[in-house]
């Protein structure tokens, strides 16, 4: 207790400035290296990010233009948009700050190095907290800036609205950030060897709660309009809780829009002072407990035991019986890695499980059945959701596989197995695992919507094509833009190569979604979903070809690079 009291009275230490300069120097070196060594890759990444940003701006602008058509509902709806946005951001920021802080404070080599130096642990916590806020707030920046510009443009708001918005953003970020920092401390103190599992289960639980709640909204939407609006808004009422930071930020922005500067400034003050207090308290508490938490994170017994491996052997024998024995051995190794890493398999199970749960809601909530337009729309949305989830999964887990294998090239490189076969083994493994998950959900979607055979063919064929494309893209680009120096698969995925792959994957998904959307649109225009016209067949052919084509091109580029790679 006395430690805690002492921590709350700590004065700034000059070494914090040294640490801050260190981080800025690292950032400057990183940017300088990118500019000097990979300018093209940097430009490509910026172009893709810019494209996403402009697309988001267009979407938000269209939403606000659409809402403005309805004078009264717009007044009600726009604050809800901000409430929902900032509540979602609270959860996302708290979660990502927790993950980044845990890695930075308890699992990397850096804290060992820094904590062996003679300075207050609060310094280390402060710098890691600032770094975590910096990295975690990218999502807010990417989503928030277009949102702000869109509403400012549509409503014709004055310059001080943008000022309030930016200050509100900056003031808001540390509140969930400090909660995330405390969550990281609690995991290190009480669940040091279960950090990964805790993370996965927390995300799973949050997503299940979300989908159950969303299912209720869906059920509400089956009612007639007035009852629907009342029911829908009452379901969202808790988002407007007076004690929620998201409410304060929403109020600040709302009053800035309504040209009530005094009220806006009041809520800005509440947000900023809370952020300052939370940050101070978070750093003080975590700083006080840091050494004991660090000790626990590094001294808890590791009870992980390898299973007999018979299940993975059976999976390899059943699903990869066609592969040559050496390739199958390589695949077996990857299957064992997958099954013994809860972050990998649980992410796949959670995401596709949630999708399955959502599909299970469909028949119950629409007892009178679906119209042609609804069937086509939901089929189209399901296709988008499945392929988008696939793209995030392949970017996170498939892309780093070649980089990780590169560290074992002293072993793999000596096997009597060509490097191209190593690549194809990765491709087969990734396509089979993700394909099984994606096709299961797609079949469930086809069954739940009672799709006619032709539209079912479009959804199944399209999903399979995009799945092949995404896996080939991730393996190929993983070999073309590898990072053999980074030991963490997560960091490889979030590096430049991983970002380019993610953006390219989203591009492929967008192409697939556009083609499926085109087919669905023409079918709805024709008034029936039982047959395809000439244009639709053409689009379907494009859909079936685009995935394998992208896969082939990326694998070719990747294999060429991997064969020339020196280790």
């Amino acid at each position, binding site marked *: 207790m006395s430690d805690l009291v002492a921590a709350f009275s700590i004065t700034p230490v000059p070494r914090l400035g040294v640490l801050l300069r260190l981080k800025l120097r690292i950032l400057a070196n990183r940017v300088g290296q990118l500019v000097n060594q990979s300018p093209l890759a940097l430009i490509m990444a910026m172009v893709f990010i810019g494209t996403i940003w402009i697309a988001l701006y267009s979407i938000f602008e269209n939403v606000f233009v659409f809402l403005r058509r309805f004078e009264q509902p717009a007044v009600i709806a726009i604050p809800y948009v901000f409430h929902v946005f900032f509540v979602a951001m609270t959860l996302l920021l708290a979660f990502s700050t927790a993950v980044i802080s845990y890695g930075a404070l308890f699992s990397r*080599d850096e804290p*060992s190095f820094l904590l062996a130096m*003679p300075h207050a642990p609060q310094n280390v916590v402060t710098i890691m907290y600032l770094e975590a806020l910096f990295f975690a707030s990218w999502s807010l920046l990417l989503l928030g800036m277009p949102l702000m510009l869109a509403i400012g443009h549509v409503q014709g708001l004055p310059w001080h609205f943008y000022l309030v918005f930016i200050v509100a953003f900056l003031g808001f970020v540390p509140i969930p950030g400090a909660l995330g920092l405390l969550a990281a401390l609690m995991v290190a103190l009480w669940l040091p060897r279960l950090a990964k599992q805790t993370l996965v289960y927390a995300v799973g639980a949050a997503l299940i709660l979300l989908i159950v709640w969303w299912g209720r909204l869906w059920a509400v939407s089956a009612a007639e309009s007035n009852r629907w609006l009342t029911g829908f808004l009452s379901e969202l009422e808790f988002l407007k809780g007076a004690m929620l930071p998201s409410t304060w930020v929403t109020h600040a922005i709302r009053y800035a829009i309504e040209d009530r500067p005094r009220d806006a400034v009041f809520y800005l003050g509440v947000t900023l002072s809370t952020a300052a207090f939370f940050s101070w308290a978070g750093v003080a508490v975590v700083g006080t407990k840091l*050494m004991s938490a660090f000790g626990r994170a590094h001294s808890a017994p590791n009870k992980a035991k390898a299973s007999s491996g018979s299940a993975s052997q059976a999976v390899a024998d059943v699903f990869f019986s066609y592969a040559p024995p050496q390739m199958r051995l390589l695949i077996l190794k990857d299957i064992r890695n997958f099954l013994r890493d809860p972050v990998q398999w649980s992410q796949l199970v959670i995401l596709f499980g949630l999708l399955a749960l959502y599909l299970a809601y469909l028949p119950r909530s629409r007892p009178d059945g679906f119209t042609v337009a609804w069937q086509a729309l939901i089929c189209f949305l399901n296709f988008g959701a499945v392929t988008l989830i696939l793209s995030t999964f392949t970017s996170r887990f498939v892309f780093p596989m070649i980089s990780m294998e590169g560290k074992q090239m002293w072993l793999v490189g000596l096997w009597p197995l060509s490097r191209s076969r190593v690549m194809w083994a990765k491709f087969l493994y990734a396509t089979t695992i993700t394909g099984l998950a994606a096709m299961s959900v797609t079949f469930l979607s086809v069954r739940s919507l009672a799709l006619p055979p032709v539209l079912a063919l479009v959804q199944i064929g399209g999903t399979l094509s995009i799945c092949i494309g995404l896996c080939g893209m991730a393996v190929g680009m993983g070999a073309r833009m590898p990072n053999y120096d980074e030991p963490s698969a997560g960091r490889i995925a979030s590096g430049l190569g991983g970002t380019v792959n993610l953006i390219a994957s989203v591009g492929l998904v967008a192409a697939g979604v556009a083609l499926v959307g085109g087919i669905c649109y023409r079918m709805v225009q024709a008034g029936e979903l039982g047959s395809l016209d000439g244009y639709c067949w053409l689009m379907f052919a494009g859909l079936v070809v685009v995935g394998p084509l992208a896969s082939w091109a990326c694998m070719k580029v990747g294999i060429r690079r991997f064969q020339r790679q020196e280790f």
Partner: protein
Amino acid sequence: MSIILNHVTKCYGRLRAVDDISLHVVPGEVFAFLGPNGAGKTTTIKMMTGLLAPDAGQIEVCGFPMTTDARAAKARLAYVPDQPFLYQKLSAREFLSFVGQMYELDPALCVERANQFMSMLDVTRFADQLAEGYSHGMKQRVVLAAALMHDPQVLIVDEPMVGLDPRTVRIVKDIFRKRAEAGRTVFMSTHTLDVAESIADRIAIINHGRIVACGTLAELKARAAQEHRLEDIFLELTQPEPSLVEGAS
């Protein structure tokens, strides 16, 4: 005393990684800490540097208890871990400058010492390249240079010779000896018995978390039944438990 470990114990769950060990290391001494893999060497070192807290017992560095006055104790020591840590996106020169600033060295002295140790450890030729391109041996040399920047009274080194070429091994051995002659302390954990034999003033051998022998090389040789090489003494004192041997066979 430079380092005092007084009945120190550390458990990982049910495993007693360090079991009631006591050690006194004096100024001007190169102290070698030997033991088989998993014997408790790194855990002991991490407790001495304040990274892990002992479950029982006390640790003092230069008279400052690590549990109650860690900052004063840490200001007097330097630690080189078995896996050298460098910021990948910093050059050796930038890294040494950072370490100097963290120990609040005068800027001019910081530059002078950085140049001195970079030259001594043959770091100068790659001093301005980013660390991501360094080999293990290059990293080890930079980390050693960084550890010497503030002229610590106690230098704690975990496996200092791994990845170093013979010339650098010789240089490092000379540095350790010179530091001891200047009244500083070097505490070194190593598997390289030749190094321990050639430069250590005293040697401790740890096995299953317990100190099984401690003394000068001559004292250890006197204890051994027949053989007189450190390798034989080490093998004799760190034999696996019979049950483990039977289990393995």
